[in-house]
């Protein structure tokens, strides 16, 4: 093994490569970290299937159980009344995006625990690139997850045109990026994944329950209405519901601008906080 005709000197010798421009380096770094997350997702197909179960339970059991009562309330859309399962469907798509996106935060904590984060942190790469790579990777995973649920729409007697599906895909990207930023923001300072899981329960479930994924946002008690307004997911759910079943409670403009504003704030905070660590 040691007697190779190629020597260390021939292979490793010479001056170190000239450093590419910071921007080029960071773009390559973001792409690399993103690709790593995608590869890991693909290797972890079991998890993908496993996280398929929960949304299905919501849709079939909760959806069927509440259907008679909620249906009687008469959720109206332009074409006529909308059944509860149809109402619930976009909310559950958003939920699966939310849950997977939050994993991006725990992924950072895992990387810290298994030591891989160090390898990334000593690379000639800005911390901003590290955070962005992680956000894009997590968002991709969450959109894949959400799409799998989305494609089940025929089971719920929904008719969605291909254009609407593409639009829904774009909305999921927006939700995915926003929620991954939230996850990363929480994960950046955490050192134990158990701690993160506990924290997540305090964050994800309220985000989900307040988002209007399960119930209409009109006629809410005052405090709930206020709380749902500061929940970024409620705008994502609203946008998705408008696109898929034609029901919405905010103007599209409010939805879009709120999502972008939340995403910007969370992203910037993650970067700032990550730059401060260690």
């Amino acid at each position: 093994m040691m007697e190779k005709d190629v020597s260390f000197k021939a292979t490793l010798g010479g001056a170190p490569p000239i450093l590419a421009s910071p921007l080029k380096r960071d773009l390559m770094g973001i792409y690399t970290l993103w690709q790593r997350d995608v590869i890991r997702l693909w290797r972890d197909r079991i998890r993908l299937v496993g996280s398929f179960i929960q949304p299905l339970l919501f849709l079939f059991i909760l959806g069927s159980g509440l259907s008679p009562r909620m249906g009687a309330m008469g959720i109206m859309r332009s074409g006529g009344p909308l059944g509860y399962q149809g109402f619930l469907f976009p909310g559950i798509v958003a939920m699966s995006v939310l849950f997977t996106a939050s994993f991006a935060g725990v992924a950072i904590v895992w990387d810290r625990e298994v030591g891989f984060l160090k390898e990334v942190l000593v690379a000639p790469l800005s911390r901003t690139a590290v955070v962005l790579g992680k956000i894009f990777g997590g968002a991709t995973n969450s959109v894949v997850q959400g799409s799998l649920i989305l494609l089940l729409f025929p089971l719920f007697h929904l008719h969605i045109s291909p254009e609407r599906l593409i639009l829904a895909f774009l909305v999921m990207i927006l939700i995915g990026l926003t929620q991954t930023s939230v996850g990363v923001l929480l994960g950046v300072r955490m050192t134990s994944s158990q701690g993160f899981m506990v924290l997540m329960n305090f964050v994800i479930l309220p985000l989900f329950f307040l988002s209007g994924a399960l119930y209409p946002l009109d006629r809410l008690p005052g405090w709930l209405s206020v709380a749902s307004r500061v929940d970024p997911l409620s705008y994502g759910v609203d946008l998705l519901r408008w696109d898929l079943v034609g029901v919405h409670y905010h103007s599209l403009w409010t939805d879009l601008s709120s999502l972008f504003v939340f995403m910007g704030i969370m992203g910037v905070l993650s970067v700032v906080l990550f730059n401060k660590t260690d």
Partner: protein
Amino acid sequence: MIEAINLKKVYRSRRGDRVAVDGISFSVREGEFFSFLGPNGAGKTTTIQMMVALLAPTSGEIIIDGLNVVTYPHQVRQRIGIIFQDPSLDDRLTAWENLEFHGRLYGIDSRTRDKRSNFLLDVMGISERRNDLVRTFSGGMKRRLEIARGLLHSPRLLILDEPTLGLDPHSRRSVWEYIHRVRRDVGMTVFLTTHYLEEADSSDRVAIMSSGKIVAQGTPDRLKKDLSSEMLSVETANPDALNAYLIAHYPSLQNQIRREGDGILLFPLPPGIDLSPWDLLRSIPLPIREASVRRPNLDDVFIYHTGSGLKNENADKRGER
């Protein structure tokens, strides 16, 4: 290659400040093999973290290859290959992917990357496992892969933080074979921290760190000679009496007598006396069961300067893993 000037790191917290590195200065020449020794918590890892710009020094500065680390962190990192104390591979990726991603993070073009990866995997003897997930690797193989990865971007300075911790003797030996070969062939500067003092024995120079300060610095030979020409080991039925006798007659031995095992005392030949070690032993009026004389090793130097042994800590550390 490395120039540290009054380097200091203070961790500030509400419960009070803790000085991890207390104004150390050292310099490492190009191509030199330099070892940092010290018990846990002496500040070795903190020093390394400042060298790779993971931590900013509280004061003082550190210059690597002519570049100030604080001002040019990325340029410095490009020149450094680092093997961390704890594992740092992505074990859900294959060996090849770990190398590929590293190469990309360091901006190496794909042709060079492939050529070097092939070569390094081959040299490290993990070529046929290149497409296996790292989680299926043994500890020794992971370490060799980490070394391959650390060398991939052709660093000028290789930092090894306890590179053989937790490895079996065979793996340790092979890891060192590779490191020495790189040094010989490429003339790479190597900065090592270790608990295994025999590993530091082959280094050009050694610095001993204790409680954030460098307490001794020099070639291993120099440090051993400075300690003493000979080390005496005496086994007796009554070590307390022997201890008292030695201190009474040779006051310079105060705090320098170590107990090893049952009734064995180990101490350097006191400086400035005319006796040969054997004459000194003969002059002891107490019954001696067994005695031996040997040259000092780095262990002795280390214990003399830090007042503590490494052996036990070593055992603890390995136990944790």
